[in-house]
């Protein structure tokens, strides 16, 4: 019997939900085991970086990479797994577009460390601040160095396929696994390089069953302040900012079906240049006012437009970061060190 093709999965700046989503494919995970040799998957098995380094270049058939590139360890692993893999998939929103970890691009590193280690929400009586290198009696201990901004996987290495979602839906993962197995068995062909896979090519609105009439919004409200939400009517029409118009289909409009607004986890739909810009266009179109003061009063109902429009997509947007982080220099701020 010929050896099974090799499979790897790795996480960088992410929450771990993508790993759970893969395990959440239930029996499908047995197909992975039956058809692949899992050679590297830190969340599921013990393996060392040096084991990967020892592998032949291109010897892993499929690597699912989740997480953004936040530090030099992430970057190093991205380059390493790129070399070792034939197919590298940016798996999940963090790898594709930065996702929630990418929101930290709105703040320069010193502020991030300040908030994480020295604000009231952190109990840190000794005022400990992490250092990239620490001379312990046993030898020097090191930590990875943080980069000024988080980058998406494709901003760092060449990526073959993109699979959106926070996390990708289990049935979509199962379908992609099935496809790769069929390709291995010579029964199917891979989609063109660069394709966005495991999703639709339309918008969430397109899959949404809610009724749409003419949208004329006189006030934006938070969902908890609209009680009760009409179960049949478009959420946006009821004044709750819904990101469905700019978001890629693939989840079967999971959130609007469940009585909540889409927050955009499947990322930009096809042909969207800048996800936030598309939403600004969409929301501005439905505001029912013409006088600047009146418009401003309605827009006050979206207290954090940057967060609303770029919750998942900030690191992959045209600007990619807030001004403070964009202008920061790595020599001015080292990882943990105080500037």
């Amino acid at each position, binding site marked *: 019997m010929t050896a099974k093709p090799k499979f790897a999965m790795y996480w960088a700046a992410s929450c771990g939900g993508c790993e759970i989503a893969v395990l959440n494919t239930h029996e499908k995970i047995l197909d992975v085991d039956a058809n692949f040799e899992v050679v590297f998957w830190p969340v599921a098995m013990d393996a060392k970086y040096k084991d990967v380094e020892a592998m032949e270049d291109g010897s892993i058939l499929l690597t699912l990479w989740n997480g953004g590139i936040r530090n030099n360890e992430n970057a190093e692993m991205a380059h390493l797994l790129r070399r070792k893999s034939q197919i590298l998939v940016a798996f999940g929103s963090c790898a594709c577009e930065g996702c929630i970890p990418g929101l930290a691009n709105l703040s320069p590193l010193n502020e991030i460390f300040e908030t994480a280690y020295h604000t009231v929400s952190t109990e840190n009586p000794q005022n400990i601040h992490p250092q990239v290198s620490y001379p312990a009696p046993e030898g020097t201990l090191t930590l990875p160095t943080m980069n000024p901004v988080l980058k998406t996987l494709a901003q760092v290495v060449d990526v073959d396929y993109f699979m959106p979602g926070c996390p990708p839906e289990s049935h979509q993962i199962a379908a992609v696994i099935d496809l790769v197995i069929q390709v291995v068995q010579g029964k199917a062909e891979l989609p063109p390089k660069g394709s966005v896979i495991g999703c639709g090519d339309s918008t969430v609105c397109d899959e949404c069953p809610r009724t749409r009439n003419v949208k004329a919004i006189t006030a934006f409200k938070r969902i908890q302040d609209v009680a009760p939400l009409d179960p049949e009517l478009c959420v946006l029409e009821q004044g709750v900012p819904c990101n469905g118009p700019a978001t890629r289909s693939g989840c079967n409009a999971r959130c609007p079906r469940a009585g909540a607004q889409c927050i955009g986890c499947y990322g930009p739909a096809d042909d969207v240049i*800048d996800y936030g810009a598309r939403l600004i266009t969409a929301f501005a*179109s439905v505001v029912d006012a013409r006088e600047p003061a009146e418009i401003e009063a309605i827009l006050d109902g979206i207290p954090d437009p940057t967060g609303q429009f770029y919750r998942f997509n900030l690191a992959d947007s045209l600007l990619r970061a807030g001004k403070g982080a964009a202008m920061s220099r790595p020599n001015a701020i080292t990882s943990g060190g105080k500037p």
Partner: protein
Amino acid sequence: MTDTFEPVIVGFTCNWCSYRAADAAGTARVKYAPNVRLIRLMCSGRLDPAFVLKALAGGADGVLISGCHPGDCHYIEQNYKALRRFLLLRRTLKGFGVEPERVKLVWASAAEGVRLAHEINAFVEEIRKLGPLNWPKWDNQSGRDLPADIEPQPIEEVPA
């Protein structure tokens, strides 16, 4: 910043009014600052906020949007949409830490060449006061203004 800072401004004009206003200013030999590069759209309603973001990300220090006066848009309502997009975009830019004043909206009819020239000159001075935006090129190779990543170092594993 420096005395020699010459702001780069991208101006989006509407075919029916402000583009003609700019033209009229030229014909009447009314001078306006050469800092602004005008791009003609069919209507201010064609302005995708992505154009503004792309201009700022690509090196512009400010963006001017102009269109027909309220009520005068040749496509009826579109300049109201432009107004709402503009107001929402400014709020969004603020969240990025970018001064919202870098984007300005001016209504100008085809007859208002002198006024448009005046508005352009005033905007150039406002941007000059704000200083350069200088958005990084986000290019790993170019090196210019790049918040470059720190050189990858070999990873040392710490035994668990």
